[in-house]
């Protein structure tokens, strides 16, 4: 037996023994996702137990070093764990922007003190993070942001407003882009971490077309932030921001993969020949994209991926996800239009469909991704 076979069989045995049966059921709604944090209420005992057991093993962040709460797994081992979890349909024990976005940035740019302070509590799901990037006047032109942090000697004084802050009303801490200099656009931005409970921070949920409010407006009014909570160098936060955006785009691109296994056509069983044809065309694109995701993962691991390639993946994955939900709506007919009935699980199909429209806006619009590919990969002039 090779080492990886041994790892696989141990992993399989552990998952069999430790993943509660309820956590092997597909998620019924967003409420089934465990986000952790100071104020988290577990939806069930099984959800709590599953998180605790995975945390103990370092498997909420299997590839992070052990000293930061991970398990120090190699990419190959992490992949095996992922496959074995998928095999039994195990739910992700912890959804976390700390894991998917801030963590990688801290690992690359954070000081040793910052890593020791913030990473373990992310791994354990104790602190829930939100991302303060976009502003009312800085969307696609993110570097045009105005929220400022003034150096007051022993602290930063933050004033300004963020928008589209996902789950800001539920988050414990924020990683935030702030202007620390007006001398240069990208070169005057710093990457700041602070507690959302700090006096002067307030949030206001935004009601979206889906009827849900996953995003907030976030206001900073004379917020005092300790000096040691800048990640990387002052005025060099754009480097951190871009690196983190790459990870965010990868995560969003994953939406292109949709659910586990099976084609959309197999799920919808369309009886209209023209709809069937459109779904088949979609399934071709979706299965091809799944092959690309797998290849992208391998290329990324091997350092062979172009640094701008997450933009290509994000664009393709999100456009695909929007198409998927258009087809789900078409396949569902008038059933899919019900907005709040029990039968429709509270309008899940329609609300999910509307939610996907943000996929090609959040984390950089499709148009911004195409600009990046045109400039950095194709080398087109003036892009």
């Amino acid at each position, binding site marked *: 037996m090779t080492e990886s076979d041994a790892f696989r069989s141990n992993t399989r045995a552990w998952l069999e023994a430790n993943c509660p049966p309820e956590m092997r059921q597909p998620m019924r709604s967003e409420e089934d996702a465990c986000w952790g944090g100071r104020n988290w209420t577990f939806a069930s005992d099984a959800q709590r137990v599953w998180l605790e057991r995975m945390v103990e093993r370092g498997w909420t962040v299997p590839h992070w070093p052990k000293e930061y709460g991970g398990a120090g797994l190699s990419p190959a081992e992490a992949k095996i764990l992922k496959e074995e979890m998928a095999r039994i349909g195990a739910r992700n024990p912890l959804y976390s922007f700390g894991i998917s976005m801030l963590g990688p940035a801290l690992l690359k740019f954070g000081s040793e003190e910052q890593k020791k302070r913030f990473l373990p509590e992310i791994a354990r799901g104790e602190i829930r993070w939100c991302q303060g990037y976009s502003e009312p006047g800085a969307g696609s032109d993110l570097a045009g942001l105005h929220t400022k942090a003034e150096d007051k000697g022993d602290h930063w004084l933050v004033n300004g407003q963020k928008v589209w802050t996902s789950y800001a009303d539920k988050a414990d801490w924020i990683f935030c882009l702030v202007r620390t200099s007006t001398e240069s656009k990208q070169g005057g931005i710093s990457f700041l971490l602070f507690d959302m409970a700090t006096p002067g921070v307030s949030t206001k949920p935004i009601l979206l077309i889906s009827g849900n409010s996953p995003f907030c407006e976030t206001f900073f009014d004379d917020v005092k932030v300790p000096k040691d909570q800048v990640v990387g160098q002052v005025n060099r936060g754009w480097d951190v921001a871009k690196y983190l955006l790459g990870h965010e785009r990868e995560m969003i691109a994953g939406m292109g993969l949709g659910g586990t296994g099976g084609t959309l056509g197999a799920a919808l069983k369309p009886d209209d020949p023209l709809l069937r044809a459109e779904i088949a065309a979609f399934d071709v694109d979706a299965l091809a994209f799944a092959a690309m995701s797998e290849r992208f993962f391998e290329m990324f691991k091997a350092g062979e991926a172009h640094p701008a390639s997450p933009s290509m993946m994000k664009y393709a994955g999100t456009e695909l996800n929007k198409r998927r939900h258009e087809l789900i709506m078409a396949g569902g007919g008038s059933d899919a239009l019900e907005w709040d009935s029990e039968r429709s699980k509270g309008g899940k199909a329609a609300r999910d469909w509307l939610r996907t429209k943000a996929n090609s806006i959040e984390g950089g619009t499709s148009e911004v991704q195409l600009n990046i590919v045109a400039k950095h990969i194709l080398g*087109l002039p003036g892009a």
Partner: protein
Amino acid sequence: MPLLNDDQKMLQETAASFLADEGGPAKQLRHWRDTGCTDGYGTALWKQFGELGLTGICIPEAQGGLGLGSVEAALVLEEIGRNLTPSPFLTTAVVGARAIEATAHAERWFPGILSGEAVFALAVDEGPRHGPDRVAMTAERRGNGFVLNGQKQFVVHGNSADMILTIARTAGSPGEREGLTLFAVPRGAGDLESATLADSSKAARLTFSNVEVDADAVVGEVDGGWEPLNRALNSGRAGAAAELVGVAAGATAMTVDYLKQRKQFGKLIGEFQALQHRAAHLYGEIEIARAAALKAAELLDSGNEKAELMVAVAKAKAASVARLAVQEGVQMHGGIGMTDEHDIGLYMKRDAVLGELFGDVYYHRNRVAELSSY
């Protein structure tokens, strides 16, 4: 899917430099087209494929080949597509070799394939659209052999082939996969009408009227022809997908270069966002099509149960992406793209033929639906 290993990368580099040097339109496609070559490809170049060992990719080592597989064939075919190289590589070294592997025909034909001398063609389609299970051509037992009656079309390289793999019905009726038998029909059997296709390649229409073949012409089992046929077709579809990726990539590279050279309104046209976004979209689609083609090849090589589904995905995806690439290519080149002098139009014509070969985008989308039970 694992990335390419060092041997595969070396093979890719060998094929890339060989075909860039020797396989481009000036030396091959245009040359043979404009000199009225009846084969539609260069026999000397085909021998060079043999000398480099490329024709032995799908032939087992024990029989003198490289003992590699569809992934390696895909690497070569992408370069063939990029350079628009007319060559019997796909029909012979991939489809032909796969059809006769582990049969009595292997010993007879492998040496000729290895040396780059033998050429094979596959005769499947009987109407203008692909439909291998709709075969109506008959093969009736007579004496020690069979009598063939029926007709075939779109037999690529059929007019220069030493052997034409021909599928005919020994039992059952059109629409059934049972009762088909694959025959190795030697050159000269049946009436042959040569047709030049849009991309200047040659395909044959064949008419068989009471043509007798020996019993040993059967490839595999009588009534069991679907198995070798499907194996050969799937390797051909995965190969055509890879070649289409090459066509798409070649056309797009040429187009992106043009965007960086051509000036209008006092600017390089590549500065216009209307063109940038289309080019960037195309880039991503080509990457995705390549991933699908390689995945299909890999699943074929490992005998994975999902191979057939992924082959259909790869052919459908690569065909639609290459179609987009050549259309955008001609459009973005503007007037010069409409001229015979410029190579971008050659990509459009090559894509048209490859897209149709072994089933077009609609055929394979339908396969994806069928294989997913909807």
